[in-house]
Each structure stands twice: as structure tokens, then as C-alpha cells.
């Protein structure tokens, strides 16, 4: 049986070919641009890489006036602020994801909550920064002093407490990565076949038992992927962090002290940098791009694998 003569057989196929061609070109351009960016950064960083080598990563001296550059405090600040943000956002994000995927709330309320979370994702970074300056900074300053007074002997909690601190930046970061965690976790919870929930309930499991013993283990790979992607986002986040973290180049271990991250360092110093400082900043940028790119690739791979596993399992 052949297609009716009045349908031009090749037209659709040709259109599809054009479209595919267009997609290929777009993909190649994107890869090319990314390569160009990395190459540009790397070339500009090269003098600093030659000059400081690995020492750049292990030194905690950042002194432009003496042309001494080391990013250990920023690496530490980046890692700790992102990790702290993740620790704060993960329980909250999971709770939101559960609220959005399970029938705790009537549907209209769920829709509303989902919209609010989406709005969090759409809020510009600088707005978070402003809100942080006017709301969070005084709060952290006030309660930080109390905590330091009573619990200063605990590692990472010693004083003095500043408003512009690692903790303040982490709090805002937590809010900013919350939508990522909530959305991806929700997607993996929603993907769980309804029969699995019913199976648990039919065995006499409570909702809590169903969630903790069946749903969360099933969604765990997706939640891990969500966390990795959120971590990557937190590491790269710049504006709000630069406004709140205090921009101190000193390595301090308390969450109440000012600190710095790679991205905030770049944002704050680039406009006035000259000479070797530019190369050093480029070196820092190169490290940052490697870190965020690596984290995102790992996160995507985990996510891809979980999706494939779920697809194959059902």
C-alpha cells in the first residue's frame, strides 16, 4: 500500500531535515562559544598559572599591592557557603516537594505553593541581595551575637559575629537553590507509579512510613541529582553573595565571620584590577568554571541515569 498521491511525500521529510540541520548548527555554535569562553579565560589566566602554579590554590594571601595571590579562603568560602546552603535548603526543598507531590493539601493550595516556589526561582539575584542587606544582615548580627555568646566554644560558631558573614550568604543561597531542589525532587516523586503508594498503604503503612520507606528511597537518586545541581548553582551564584558575604580575604573558620567566594571575588575586584591581578582573577574564574561545569555535568549524569533507570523499571 502506498501513500495517496495527493500527499507530497517528501515535503515533510525535507522540512524535518531543515529543522534537524538548524538544531545541529545551534548545538555546534553553543559548544563553540563555550570553548571560546574557556579558551579566553585560560589564555588570560596563563601568566598567573605559570607564576603561581598549584600554590595559587593553597595560599591564603590575596594582596594586590604586593602582587601576591592565593584563593584558599575563597575556595573555602565557596565550598562552605554552598554546602551550608544545601544543608539548609535540602530539608525544606524536600518538604516542599512532598507537599507538592502528595495529597497533604487541597489542589488549589498546592498550585499556589508551586507558583510561589517558581517565583522564588524567577527573582533576580540582586533583589535577594538587597533583601539580605536590609533584613538578614541585622538579624544575623543580632542573633549571631547571642549564639556566639552562648555557644562560641563550638567549632565554626566562634565570634565575633558580623552581619555580613558566611552564614548570611548561605541563608540567601539556600533560598535561591530551594526551587531547584524542590522542582527536581518533586519531578522524581511524581514519577513514582501510583501503585507503589497504594501498595504501601494497603499493607497498613501510615503516610509517614510510606514516604520514608517507599517514596524517598525510590526518589533518592533524583534527590541526589537535585542536590548536586543545586550545589553547582550555589557555587556560581554571584550578585547576592557579593553583596552579603563581607568580602574578607582572610581565612576564617566561623560562619559568623565575613568571608568570600570565588564568584564574589571576581565581581568585586574586576573593575579595578590591573596587571597580574587580572591574570590572577582569570585563574580564579577558570577554577570556578571548572568547578561549576564539573558539578553540573555530574548532576546531569546522575539525573539522566535515574530517569533511564525509572523508565526501564516500569
Amino acid at each position, binding site marked *: 500500500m502506498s501513500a495517496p498521491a495527493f500527499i507530497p511525500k517528501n515535503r515533510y521529510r525535507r522540512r524535518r531535515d531543515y529543522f534537524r540541520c538548524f538544531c545541529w548548527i545551534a548545538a555546534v555554535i553553543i559548544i563553540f562559544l563555550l570553548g571560546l569562553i574557556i579558551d579566553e579565560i585560560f589564555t588570560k589566566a596563563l601568566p598567573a598559572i605559570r607564576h603561581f602554579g598549584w600554590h595559587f590554590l593553597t595560599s591564603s594571601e590575596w594582596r594586590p599591592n604586593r602582587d601576591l595571590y592565593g584563593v584558599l579562603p575563597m575556595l573555602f568560602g565557596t565550598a562552605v557557603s554552598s554546602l551550608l546552603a544545601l544543608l539548609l535548603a535540602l530539608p525544606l526543598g524536600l518538604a516542599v516537594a512532598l507537599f507538592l507531590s502528595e495529597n497533604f493539601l487541597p489542589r488549589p493550595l498546592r498550585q499556589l505553593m508551586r507558583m510561589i516556589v517558581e517565583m522564588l526561582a524567577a527573582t533576580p539575584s540582586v533583589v535577594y541581595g538587597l533583601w539580605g542587606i536590609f533584613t538578614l544582615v541585622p538579624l544575623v548580627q543580632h542573633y549571631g551575637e547571642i549564639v556566639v555568646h552562648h555557644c562560641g566554644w563550638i567549632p565554626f560558631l566562634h565570634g565575633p559575629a558580623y552581619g555580613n558573614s558566611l552564614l548570611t550568604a548561605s541563608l540567601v543561597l539556600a533560598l535561591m537553590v530551594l526551587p531547584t531542589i524542590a522542582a527536581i525532587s518533586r519531578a522524581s516523586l511524581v514519577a513514582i507509579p501510583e501503585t507503589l503508594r497504594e501498595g504501601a498503604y*494497603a499493607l497498613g*503503612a501510615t503516610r509517614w512510613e510510606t514516604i520514608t520507606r517507599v517514596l524517598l528511597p525510590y526518589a533518592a537518586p533524583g534527590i541526589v541529582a537535585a542536590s548536586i545541581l543545586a550545589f553547582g548553582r550555589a557555587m556560581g551564584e554571584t550578585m547576592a553573595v557579593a553583596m552579603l558575604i563581607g568580602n574578607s580575604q582572610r581565612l576564617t573558620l566561623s560562619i559568623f565571620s565575613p568571608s568570600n567566594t570565588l564568584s564574589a571575588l571576581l565581581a568585586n575586584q574586576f573593575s579595578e584590577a590591573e596587571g597580574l591581578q587580572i591574570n590572577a582573577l582569570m585563574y580564579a574564574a577558570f577554577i570556578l568554571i571548572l568547578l561549576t561545569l564539573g558539578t553540573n555535568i555530574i548532576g546531569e549524569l546522575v539525573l539522566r541515569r535515574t530517569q533511564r533507570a525509572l523508565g526501564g*523499571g516500569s
Partner: protein
Amino acid sequence: MNPTSINSTELLPSSSKVTPSGVTNETFIKVINFDFFYGKKQTLFNINFAIPSKHVTSFIGPSGSGKSTLLRNFNRMNELLPGVRHEGDITIEGRSIFDASIEIIALRRRIGMVFQKSNPFPRSIYENVVFPLRIMGCHKRAHLNETVERSLRSVALWDEVKDRLGENALGLSGGQMQRLCIARAIAGQPDILLMDEPCSALDPIATAKIEELIVELKKEFTIIIVTHSMQQASRVSDLTAFFNFGKLIEFDHTNRIFTAPIEKQTEDYITGRFG
């Protein structure tokens, strides 16, 4: 009218009675004037019948006739859905399952359920079987091990999986998964086993195995099975209930339903002359 005073035979449609001969007339589950609504839509209409203990009862009837809906009322699974409502009563051993003093969790632990599509949890075979015990707070190794062996032996799965209890249950074949789900459903030692088309996704060999199993399991459990297969109903069940448009049309001994149905609708359905 006090429902518990009604003799089980009185609850049957007057045209078709379960004769006591061969059936211990001890009523176990009783459905009394039962109506069910999804929102405004009524799906079950004035259902009345009584099921004796340790028998297999099959629910047959065309698609959408309300078999699953009724089945899911016995362990109150329908209450997970919003906007559902019922009228009338269901009693087990004379006690209403809707009574305020009945804990829904406790009720569900007394009633195992097997679904159309097998639904093992994505954990080890072992953890699947002991799930009901774990949520009851039992963590004694010896008891768990013993339950795993007993339950898996009951479903004739023990020899096939005893060397890989720690492996993920999702690696089993379809038939094995369904038998695992039955093992999980009986691990908590319920009295009643509800099965909603348990073989519809299985090949004939796996189906035959599960049918054998059902006949074996009725020594211990009161079983209600929904099926679309007339052969299956006649092979495994002692009693058969035929539903149509949300009404119980006929309820009788299985052989009677299949050899000498009283209602024309029943006859049309089992002889395949139905819509």
C-alpha cells in the same frame, strides 16, 4: 433493623441463594445495603451479600461494573481518593469496618491486597517481604527470617530466590514479582486477601502457578479475587459474584453460576454474548 441479626442467606438476592451444603455457613464478611459514590457519581447500588470464611470468592462482570470499587472498600483504600462517600455498611466478623473505633491502619494490616500490576518496592526481595513486619515495629532477625521463608514458600518462590534475597526485587520476572507481592501481602498474616486481576499481566504459565497458589492459600485466608477470565473464576473460586452497572446481579456457588445461572444477564455475560 439490626444488620448483624440477618442470616447470610437472607442477604443474597432472593433468586439465588448460597446453599449451605459444602459451605460452612459462618458469615465472615457481610456487605449490607452498600452504595458508593465517586463525587456525585454513584458507582455501587445497594449491594448485599455475605462471604464465608476460608473460601475463594470471585467478582466477575464487565469493565466499569464496580468490581474494583467494591474490592477497594473492604480495606478502605478508596478513602485515599478525595470526594468519595458510601452508604450502608460492610462488616467483618460482625463488626463494621467503618466504625469510628476501627483504626484504618489496623484494618489494612488484617487485609492483604494484591494489585493488577505487581508493585514490588524498589528494595531487596527480603525487605519487600518483611515490610509489613517492619512497619509493625518487629525487628527480631529470627522472626523476620522465618517470615521470609514461610511467606516465600507459600507462594512457591522460596527455591527460586533463596540464594538472592538481598537482590533488588525489580530484577525478578513479572510472574515472580507478582508472587513476591502475594508473599508480601500475606507476610503480616492477614485474614483476608484481596486480589484485583492478579494475573492480567502474566503469561499462562505464571497464571497457572498463581491459580494453584490461590487454591492452596484458601486454607488459611478468605480470598476475594476480581477476574475477567471466566476460566479462572471457575478454576479457583468456590463462590462467584456477577456485577453489572454497579449492581450485584447474582451471587452463588461458582459451578451454579457457570452451569445454571438464574439471571439472563449473567448467562449472557458468561457465554460471551455480552456487549
